[in-house]
Each structure stands twice: as structure tokens, then as C-alpha cells.
């Protein structure tokens, strides 16, 4: 499953980059995130609650930042186990460029993989739910940075 998108953020690239690396911002932006602990360098531990179709699950897992190019791009990847609900893994490559108006152009490319009941029962809903969640993340992020 792949999702792509972009957001024009009315803030300079340095600010956007800083926020992308700030656990508190990430916690606010990850839909359903109840806990996010740890640090950028050692990795984060997260607890995320989600509902996909008939499946409700609490995911416990790791959030890691990889392939970091300062001020330009990174890959944020999460892998969570939701017990019998299954598992969810996802990578988002996030890239920043300066926009003409002094703001920042954020583009993202998400790849997600699901297993267990989530895949079996939520199958027909997964595409739209995943798109909704990634949209929600970047909408919230934009709002968070711009306020």
C-alpha cells in the first residue's frame, strides 16, 4: 500500500525540520497516539490506538528515524504489534524544500504493511483508512507548525 502527498507549510524550513524531530509534535500529530517516549537518537516507543472496520487495537511499537539528511529529509518508520489484531508497519519518506513564498514544501511517500485480523477483516477498508490517517498526520503537522 502506497500513499503520496504534499503540503505547503507557511514556516521556514528550519522550523519545519525542528518540528519533524520533536517528540511532542509527533505525538500530537500521530492519529490515536497515546504515548510517545524516548528520544530521537535512541528511538521512540509508542502506544497508538486505532480502529479499522470491525477491528479495534492498541498497538505497541517503535518509531525510528532513518536515512536522516539534516534539514532535507528523513524516513520515519513505525512498527506496531496489536496482539490478535495483528501488526502494522509503515515507512514514510519525508522531504523538505524551500517554497518560493518563503514557506516550505513538504512531500511524503508512505508505504504501509498490515497483517493478522487487520488485514483479514479490515481488508476492504484499509486503503481508505490508511489514506485518511496519513492525511490526518500531515494536516495536523501543518497546523501544528503554523500556529
Amino acid at each position, binding site marked *: 500500500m502506497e500513499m503520496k502527498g504534499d503540503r505547503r507549510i507557511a514556516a521556514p524550513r528550519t522550523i519545519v525540520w525542528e518540528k519533524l524531530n520533536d517528540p511532542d509534535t509527533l505525538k500530537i500529530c500521530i492519529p490515536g497516539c497515546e504515548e510517545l517516549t524516548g528520544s530521537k537518537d535512541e528511538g521512540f516507543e509508542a502506544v497508538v490506538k486505532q480502529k479499522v472496520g470491525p477491528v479495534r487495537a492498541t498497538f505497541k511499537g517503535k518509531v525510528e528515524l532513518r536515512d536522516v539528511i539534516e534539514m532535507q529529509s528523513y524516513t520515519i518508520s513505525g512498527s506496531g504489534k496489536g496482539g490478535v489484531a495483528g501488526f502494522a508497519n509503515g515507512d514514510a519518506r519525508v522531504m523538505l524544500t524551500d517554497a518560493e513564498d518563503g514557506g516550505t514544501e513538504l512531500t511524503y511517500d508512505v508505504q504501509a504493511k498490515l497483517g493478522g485480523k487487520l*488485514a483479514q*477483516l479490515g481488508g476492504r477498508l484499509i486503503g481508505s483508512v490508511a489514506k485518511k490517517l496519513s492525511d490526518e498526520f500531515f494536516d495536523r503537522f501543518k497546523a501544528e507548525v503554523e500556529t
Partner: protein
Amino acid sequence: MTQKPGKLRAEFRTELPSGWAFDEIEARIGPIRDQLFKQIGQPVRRKEDRRLVTGRGRFTDDFSVPGECYAALVRSPYPHARIKGIDPSAALELPGVLAVYTGVDALADGLGPIPHSPVPSTKFDVRLTAPDGEAPFIGPHLLLPIDKARHVGEAVAVVIADTKARAEDAAERVDVDWEELPHVTDSLEAIRPGSPRLWDEVPDNTLVCSHFGDADATDAAFQSAAHRVRAKFHINRVTAVTIEPRAALADYDKASARSTLYAGSGGAVRQKRELASVLGIDPDDLRVLSYDVGGNFGARNRVYVEFGLILWASRKLERPVKFTATRSEAFLTDYQGRDLHTTVELALDENGQFLAMRADNVSNVGARCVSLSPLSKGSGLITGSYHIPVAHLVARAVFTNTMCTQAYRSSGRPEVTYAIERLVEIAAEQCGFDPIDLRRRNLVSADQMPYRNAVGAIYDSGAYEENMDKAMALFQWPDIAARRDDARARGKLLGVGLANYVESSIGSPVERAEIAVSPDGEVEVVIGTQPSGQGHETSFAQVVADMLQMPVEAVTITLGDTDIVSVGGGSHSGRSMRHAGTVMTMASADLLAEARRRAGAEFGTPAEDLAFEDGAFKCRATNRFLTLSDLSTATAPLAVARTNEMHAPVFPNGTAICEVEIDPDSCQIEITRYASVDDVGRCINPLIVHGQSHGGIAQGVGQAMWEDCAIDPSSGQQIAGSLLDYGMPRADNVPSFDCEIAEVLSPTNPLGIKAGGEGGTTPALATVTLAVLDALRPLGVRDISMPITPERIWQALASAREANMQELVP
């Protein structure tokens, strides 16, 4: 109308192997005369239905034993993953949790693998072997794996708790340390070099590779042929969706050291034998009870790991343990069906005479090999109902990271029927023949029977062309053009698909019947088959009633308790009526012989002088008579037992025709008519056979139009895990069927029985697909794969439009 079986004549082209035909001397019984039949052939209403529809059925989950606890399984969310460790501590902390067992525990207790015997074993099954000619490696089916999980849903630990909810909660807390491995779910992918390997013993995942027929003669015929056609098909994977999910209850009696397992299945005797082997106990220490069963279709014939696990757990904990699968578990881990890739080629001469056929069949057995029946059955029938002088087949079975497949409703036959019927239709179109004429020209004719096909299967009897004519008459074939115009006027595309079929019914060769007449005139029959809706209690009673000249009501059929039923092959492969009918007829003859002896002694006359009429032996020229109940006393009841071994397959056959209307805008499909003629051999109860055929058609239509165990190849996940995502046929989306039964008797058994029911399914995949293609042909569509959903039709129409555009714009 009943036709007499052809008497075996010396001049038959086909040399019949010994043990093929029914042997009157060895059986001590001749073909049964029609004059005896009062009940056989009558649409007797099913005796079991009152019980079933008034809630008095005894299904597995209805049983409870005081103190029972519940099992829940920890299942793999990955298609392929190494088990680095299993930590049950968090689960064991929860209240009510009695135990968590893993594969390591099972190994420590000496549990063995389920002794599946996947290679069909009668004398007339085709011989499937490993590529080196040896017996295939099947992948040991341990109750819980130790090394790795090989498919999504594979159980890796079992949790036992005092309530079902607590067991499920605890299962969620068992921490499995997984190491994900690369996976492969498609069989053609799995045989590519470098594909992920499931078993080190089988590096290329190919556990079976066998050749059948004559490769050189086939090559030669292809070379000189005027026409050659070729096609590739995938017959999609489906699952049985039994209305009663699989369930079991294990109870251990410490005093006697005996276990009792309540578990609905396709045959309790196999369950007992194989589960005793898994547990390493004497089979006498295990009693299996299988009473009413809510659907089988093959899925319940083989042993499930959960049955062994709860037996084991109940012995360890000394408490009864119950397991009832959820619908999700059923979708994921019931044995599944079909999943065959086939490439077929046909050579024809300039007049449309079939000259030769090639087939390359690749069967996806899943992560372990439970049954090779689908590949085997299909292999013997690649040429279908047609006389094709030479053929060559490569049959392969392949491991993949998917749930195991098993014989499912007409194992292996719908697949090859689909292939040959679609190929014939392609040949007709590409070479310019009328599809019906082409079929007629090449059908095996009645005077070729018994007919040996190009891969060695011997078709016992049948009037194939007559079936086709009858079905076309039933369908009112000449009206098609007018109906098509009428549909067009309503904005609909009408299509018609016809398929001929022949299928083989083989099955486990041994069956046993015990018949006893009580002094009060009750007849009890003990038999080792297992109905799951087929009405054995009625049709079997009809046979015994006629043999003993007693009323049907007097006959009771007892089955499903291994303490009573000692031998029996269960119900699969359309074997039950034929095997049970034969052995019950033999046992009845034995019983009458004993009764005659007793009557002779009583009358003081030679036994052979007595007449047997209306259930009584009559002393000629007197008014003295003795009924069977008179001849049975409490101290010396009339009771016999007979075991029969019968290897020869029978070949039910027929023709089915489907009509569809498609709305080209919404791409909605409606099945508007369906007609079929099914030669089932002797029909014991037409009411039951029709019911079975109707269910069989719905099941075949279901696969063609809705059903699909869709697997996402990138994640290996089965993505249709509920009735929300897995489409099923329903009463409102199939029409009323026009079915007719043909009875061309089989010479292989005394009653001339073939088999009924599966004949509904066998041609249905082909008829539906051909009808859809017929409707869409004017719009340029030539191929479509199952299930044919409106989305698939829309895609087919879109690509046909695109292709047309490209042709127009050079």
C-alpha cells in the same frame, strides 16, 4: 429411464484390469433386479429433517461436559516467520488461565505429526510421485510447529482457560519473538529459482512432479495438426464456509485412561485412527463421536491440529477442553480448496477432430501437503468428456506460504472441466467451428464404453451426447436468439454457456455394514460413512428396506460413534451411496441367507424351496410364513456384518447450461436460467439427489462469481477473512434450476450407482464463465478470470475498448 449396464463383451477395445468390474462370484451377489425396488428410486422425504429443523440436531458445540475449559490459539500474523521464542508468562498471570502449551511442549510429550496420507491409494488412482519418482515429502504436520510458522494463521501455541473469553484474552498476551522471513503465496512464483523455500527437504518447493500419457505421440500429433490452440487459466482458491464452524470437545476419563472426542467430521473412523497416532495411544483408548455435521464439502475430512491439541490438553489437565472456531478462524485455517494453475493445448485436424492434448497442472497445496486428491482427480480427467487419442500431462504440487488445500466439493474436477471446456470454446472460435458441433463431433460415444482415456482413466458407462441433447432441450436452446433480442431491448447483454463434464468418484476403498433385525421388527444398520446434510438416514434406509422388503420407517441408520462403527471410509469423493449401498446390499443378502436357513429349519423344508415375499419366508403350497422378526430372537438375533473393498471408480457425467444477463453500465450479472442433466447411475432418492445438485450448482456458481480466498502477494495476508469480504451465493442471486437425472447404470457395483451432487459443481465454473464471455464477446472480451465480479467485467470491458481504440488508431 434406466438403461441396463452393458454386459462386458470380449471385443471391447479397452482391456479391463482385474478388479475393475463388480465380481458377482466374489461378492456373492448379482446385479439387483429392478423388480425388487419399491423404495429405491422414490422421492422419500428425509427422515432426519424433523429432528434437524426442530432444533434437535446434535452438533459438536451442543455438547458440554461438567468442568469443561476452553482452548484459544495463538496464531501467526506472518506468512513465514521463524519462532525465536515464546514467552507465556504474561498470559499465565491472568486469572483462570490453566496452561499455555507450545510446540516444544508437544515434542517433549512425544506427540507425532498428523499422519495425513495425501497420495490417493486405490488401485485406479493415478500415481503421483516426487520429481525423483519416490514418495513425496509432505511436510510433517505437527500440532504446533517448533521451527517456524509457514502461513498466516498457523497456530504456534494453545492457551487453556476456564472461560472462552479468558482463553482469548490470554492468547493475546502470549509473546512470540518472530523473525520475519521472505514468503511466497503463488505456486508459479514458488517454483521459480530463488524463491523463498518452505522446507529444506524440498529446495524448489515442488513436492510432486509426475508425467502421464504419451509425450512423443502427443508431440507428433501436434506437429501434424491443422489447428493448435493454447490457453492458461488459474482456478482460484476458495473455502468451504461450512455453516457450523469446526468444533471439538475432548474429555479424558482417568479411571479408564480413555479419551472421548466430540468432533463433527467427514468420518469419525479416520479421526480416531489418525488422532490416536498423533497422541501415541492405542486407538481403543480413543472414542470419536461425530453426529450431526453442519457442512463439510471436504474441509472436515482431514484431521485438524486443534482436535489433537485439546485431546492432549485434556489428558494433561485431566479436564474436558472445548474448542469452537470463530468465523475468522474458519476463513483463515479451514482446509481450503482449488488453487490450480493450468496450461492446456489442443490439436485438431481440419475437420475439428481432436487429435491430442497437452496439460501442465500446478496445484498449490499450501504450507504442508494434506491431500493430493485435487491434483490426482484432475489428472485422470484432463481430456474431459471427449475422445482425444493421445495426451500428455505434467502434474506438479507445490508448497507455498498459504493454508493447506484439501479436496473441496468435487475435488479436482471443476478445475479440469473448466480448462477443457474453455479450451474447446477457444478452439471453436479460433478455428471457425460451431462450438456445439465441435463438442458433438468429439464426445466419447456410448458404444465406446467402458472407455479408457488418453491418461488411463476408464470411464465406466454413460451416454454423453444424449446428456447434451437432453440438456439443450430442457434449456429450450432454439429460443436463445429470441431471448438475446429481448434482453438487448431491455439494455442487457445475454450470454449462454454450455459445459459437458465427466468426473470420477473414487474414495477410500473399504466400507463395512452391520445389519441386525430385532425380534420386534426394527432393523438397525451400522455404517461408517458420515453425512453432513446428504440424508443418509433416509437413502440408506431405502436400500436396506428394499433388500429386506421392510418399510423404510423400520430401518434405523447408526453412524458417527467409533465405539459402534469400527470400519468406514467416511463421506468424500461421492463415495457414500455407492460404497454403503453396495456393502449394505451384500450384508442384506447375508442376512437373508441366514434367515432362510432358519426358516427352512423351522418349517422342516429345504431352505431353497422357500419364497421370500413382503419381508417373510413362505412355505410353498401352505399358508405358513415367518417374518424376519419372527426369525430373530433375543438370544439369537438375526445379525450380520460385511466388509467390502471396492476400488473401481465410477464416472458421473452430464451437461449443464447457464444463461446470464449483464447490465453493461453497472456490470451487474444476473443468472437468469440454469439447466442440467446429470447421470448419477442408479438414483436411490431423486428428491435428495436434486437437492444435492442444487447445492452443488450454487457452490460452483459461487466460485465463478463471488468466492475468493484473496491473498495479498506482497504481504502474504489473506484479505477476505469474514463474510463481509468473502462473497457467497444466496437464494436471491441464483434462479430456480431445471435439473434432470439420467440413470445409466455403472457396471462396477450391484446397484449400478455412480454419484450425485458434485455433478452440480463440476461444470458450473465453466458454464458461468462461458456465459459471461458469450455475453461480452460482441464487445471484444475474450478472457475473464474468476470470480467474475462486476469490477472484473468493468475492467474487461475497459481493456477491450482500449484494445479496439488501438486497432482503430494505427
